[in-house]
């Protein structure tokens, strides 16, 4: 018997969620991070990952079962984009958002939007869309019991949101925020206290590593380990394979510079590839700005015994899961 309706009716206005597990359903498996808020703020109380998709919730370890779940989904067809609509926020009803996002079949996608900024003549709308089948598959393991799903986000946006929440300095500066997933790269550019650019590109770590391996005559995994570990000096090849991504970022930066008259002076990156700092080097060179790698497991305090050094070193992989969970913790009513 589902008593959630009765329970919510007697929650008397809602309670702040203090224990959330964030899930990242990605191309390379499932990653989960359990976060809890205490006197010392947000604390990591558990981390879990699996290579296979999570279809049976019973395989999920008991110590990771928080009451609430925040789900992030990455998919090549997922869309996240900041649009500038030349209308006030009250007159967006007939805007063809699906067309603007390049979605041919709107029925097959689940779309949502947040108004990032609005004034009389223009509204900045942050739009996200994921295939309905992927949304249903991600929510299926959480159809009953705990953890109970509270949010469903695009993984790239969740990761960047987590990055902003963990790095308050970003609010006051113009920065490029990059989440490099296995299949998709999400780029956001900020100006002080304003979101200026958000796009997703189908240039993921897998594509970059595949091209690098082809150039070096080795498979992608070997190229990742050899170049990332500094065994092979492949500066020119790395620059070449990163060029499509850096070019897109440069285009975005130029757009922001023209439109907002602000030039981003720092890059924050997250994603599993950046477990090795060497992969941030081509971005630093191409963009000619400082690069900071966001490792959420290193940034956030951890509960005693929750993390070991090896897991912390792998923390970049959990950016989307952490970001999704932080989004819940930050958005529940006080």
């Amino acid at each position, binding site marked *: 018997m589902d008593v959630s309706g009765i329970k919510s009716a007697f929650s008397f206005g809602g309670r702040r969620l203090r224990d959330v597990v964030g899930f990242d359903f990605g191309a390379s498996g499932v990653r989960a991070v359990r976060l809890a808020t205490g006197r010392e703020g947000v604390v990591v109380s558990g981390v879990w990952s699996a290579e296979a998709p999570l279809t049976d919730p019973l395989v999920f370890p008991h110590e990771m079962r928080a009451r609430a779940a925040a789900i992030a989904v990455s998919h090549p067809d997922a869309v996240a984009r900041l649009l500038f609509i030349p209308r006030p926020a009250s007159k967006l009803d007939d805007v063809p958002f699906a067309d603007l996002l390049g979605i041919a079949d709107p029925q097959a996608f689940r779309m949502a939007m947040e108004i990032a900024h609005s004034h009389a003549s223009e509204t900045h709308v942050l739009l996200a869309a994921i295939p309905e089948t992927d949304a249903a598959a991600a929510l299926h393991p959480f159809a009953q019991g705990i953890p109970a799903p*509270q949010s469903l986000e695009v993984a790239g946006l969740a990761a960047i949101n987590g990055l902003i929440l963990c790095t308050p300095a970003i609010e006051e500066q113009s920065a490029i925020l990059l989440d490099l997933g296995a299949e998709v790269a999400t780029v956001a550019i900020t100006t002080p206290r304003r979101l200026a650019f958000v796009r997703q590109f189908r240039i993921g770590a897998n594509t970059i590593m595949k091209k690098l391996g082809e150039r070096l005559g080795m498979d992608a995994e070997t190229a990742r380990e050899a170049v990332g570990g500094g065994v092979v000096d492949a500066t020119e090849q790395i620059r070449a394979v990163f060029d499509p991504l850096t070019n897109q970022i440069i285009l975005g930066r130029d757009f922001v510079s023209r439109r907002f008259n602000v030039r981003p002076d720092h890059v924050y990156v997250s994603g599993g590839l950046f477990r090795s700092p060497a992969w941030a080097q081509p971005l630093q060179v191409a963009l000619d700005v400082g690069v900071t790698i966001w490792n959420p497991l290193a940034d956030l305090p951890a509960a005693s015994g929750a993390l070991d050094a090896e897991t912390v070193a792998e923390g970049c992989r959990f950016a989307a899961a952490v970001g999704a969970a932080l989004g819940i913790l930050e958005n529940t009513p006080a």
Partner: protein
Amino acid sequence: MKLRVNLIAEKEVRDCSVVTPRFLIRLTGALVATAVLAVFGWVFIVSQQRATALKAEEWKWGRLESDFKQAQALSKRLRAAEFIVADLDVWRTVRHKWSDDLTAIAVAFPETLQLTDLSMTRATVIPAVVIPKSKPGAKPPRSPPPSPPEFRTSLRLTGVTSSPTAEDDVAGCRKIFTEHPFTNTVTAAVIPPGAFRQDPARNAGPNDRIFEISCTYRVITL
């Protein structure tokens, strides 16, 4: 500045609180409060309805009170009148038709007898109530209900005769009361002992006798 776009549908969001003692206490408290409120509400509504009904009845009573008291007085008078009528009916029922008896006596009375006195007696007797004796220390027995009064009637005939067949004539005269119309009314007609005797008058002859016949009528219970 947040990049959070929540794609979950409202119906897919489930409440994530577990059933805790606190929740059960709240639920129980809410149910008890609801029950208490319902009871108080019900009592309040019923009391209001009754107060309204009472006011309406009082208003009606205010209009009917004088008529009601008048009706009560009339009813009291009616009952008294009905008692009187009932008593009169009883008396009418038990009334004895002496004319029939006297006519029958006049027709059948022997010529040799001279009637000197005829007296009729009517009496209403209330039978005594016998209260049973109670044993010492025991609860006194309940006294029986009073018996209804009895209406008793008697007739006494006194006369003289000088007939040689006086004794037979007096006996024949007594026999009148065993025949119609006395058969249903007279229970006993006797010549009291010593009532048929020599006339004690000074100038009475040897054949002059006096006699007396007493008739007792059937007792009628009122």
